[in-house]
């Protein structure tokens, strides 16, 4: 290991490749790496902790970039279930589509998905920013606690079901809203945030005025006997 050409799944094992990327010294001058032939392997680039730039050329399997800290990961392909699960900081950019539960429980950093995200995108997210240039599947933003989702396409059924304090900006239409998720008025802070996210995602097709804001009605926060059927 050590040579860039060895970050190739045809020549090396997942464990060795991950182990190498997880142990780049902060003193190392070489900060850019390319992973080849990922062939849908799971947990590629999970647990990275350094400020490095990793390009993955191909489609990845489950939990790519899980628990990521600081690293910038670009996937030239599609991603499987649980992309950037529980990530803390850094950036993951998927050039294709992402499967279900992208950004699940993630605390920080940014995920950019150029294509569509499948169901349960941003489930239980805790502070991450998720930018989806396409559409998201059903139950996206389920029980999402904080952070922001910006979706340029449509959303599937039950968007933001049982949502806490995550804010969802949606340009398309939701098939339906989940329990306790409502449309809200856009304020100055929202405009600034949407502008920032559009800039981060390098999105030019959409303007701030294209987006609607969705968030929690906060009716489920305290038990109310009238809401019993919603629990």
């Amino acid at each position, binding site marked *: 290991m050590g040579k860039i050409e060895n970050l190739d799944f045809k020549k090396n094992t997942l464990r060795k490749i991950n182990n190498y990327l997880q142990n780049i010294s902060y003193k190392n001058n070489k900060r850019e790496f390319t992973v080849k032939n990922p062939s*849908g*392997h799971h947990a590629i680039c999970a647990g990275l902790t350094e400020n490095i730039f990793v390009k993955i050329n191909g489609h990845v399997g489950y939990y790519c970039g899980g628990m990521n800290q600081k690293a910038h990961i670009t996937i030239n392909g599609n991603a499987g279930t649980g992309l950037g699960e529980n990530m803390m900081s850094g950036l993951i950019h998927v050039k294709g*589509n992402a*499967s*279900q539960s992208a950004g699940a429980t993630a605390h920080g950093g940014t995920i950019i998905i150029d294509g569509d995200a*499948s169901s349960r995108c941003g489930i239980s997210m805790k502070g991450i920013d998720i930018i989806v240039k396409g559409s998201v599947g059903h139950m996206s933003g389920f029980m999402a606690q904080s952070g922001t989702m910006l979706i340029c396409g449509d959303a599937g059924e039950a968007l933001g079901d049982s949502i806490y304090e995550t804010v969802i900006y949606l340009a398309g239409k939701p098939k339906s809203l989940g329990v306790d998720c409502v449309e809200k008025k856009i304020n100055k802070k929202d405009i600034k945030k949407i502008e920032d996210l559009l800039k981060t995602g390098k999105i030019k097709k959409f303007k701030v005025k294209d987006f609607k804001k969705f968030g929690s009605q906060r009716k489920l926060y305290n038990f109310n006997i009238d809401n019993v059927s919603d629990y």
Partner: protein
Amino acid sequence: MCGIVGLYLKKKKLHNKLGFYLSGMLDNMSSRGPDSAGFAIYNNKESKKYYKYSLCLNNTLSSDFEQVVNQKFKDITIKNISDHIVVQTTTTPKKFISYIHKNFRLISLVGYGKSIEIFKQVGNPSEIVKKFKLENFSGSHAIGHTRMATESAITVNGSHPYSTGEDECLVHNGSLSNHNNLRRQLIKKGKTFDSLNDTEVAAGYISQKLSENKSMKKTLTESLTDLDGFYTFIAGTNKGFAVLRDEIACKPAVIAENNDYVAVASEFQAMAHLPYVNKSNIYEPKPGVVYTWGK
């Protein structure tokens, strides 16, 4: 968990590679289902005059079986592969199957039809693929399964694909919760079942609907209301196959399609070895939508 795979070849020149491609797909799905595996191969080349019966010998000696069957039925050829035999004969299913059930109780009929051949076994999928020499098979389309048992025992009868009708088969990733009730209803309609497995019931359900002259698309659409549980199905007939995910869609599936083939699998890694797959149109089947391919 379980892994399911399906491959439909659009071009005839690729037909002799079917087994080779499928063996790689099953091999890559060993991680999802390490305890048993099976596959169904559709080959429409042979004369329509003949039926093919895929049998698992279990503990019966193939020589004993061959001797008796050769005397009993005319115009018969027998192919031996590992613990399976494929009997090709003009004898109709009604006659042949009841004969087998009566005279060879230990033998399980795993499938029959004019183009289908089914093989399934207990053990590690990579080894099973080698035992059956899957690489050598040719055909137009195939379906496979690697099993992580949940609903019934680890036996050949508990393994997929399930075939409950002529040239029909089903593989399933997930579990059904209303299969006991449904089994009782189907038994009343005359269906028979060899196991306590939930997928066999779903296969029986599909066969029943198809025998009522419903299309595969209509059948699977109706299954969304009649089957309760989690599933991604691949259902095969001699014409092609169909894919359906339940509306909650907890069970994964990915499809890759190009001019040469359609590949379906639980995970992308099952198809990573297929030619030009990275340039194919790759997408996830949407929940509750029936996808079909074939003539």
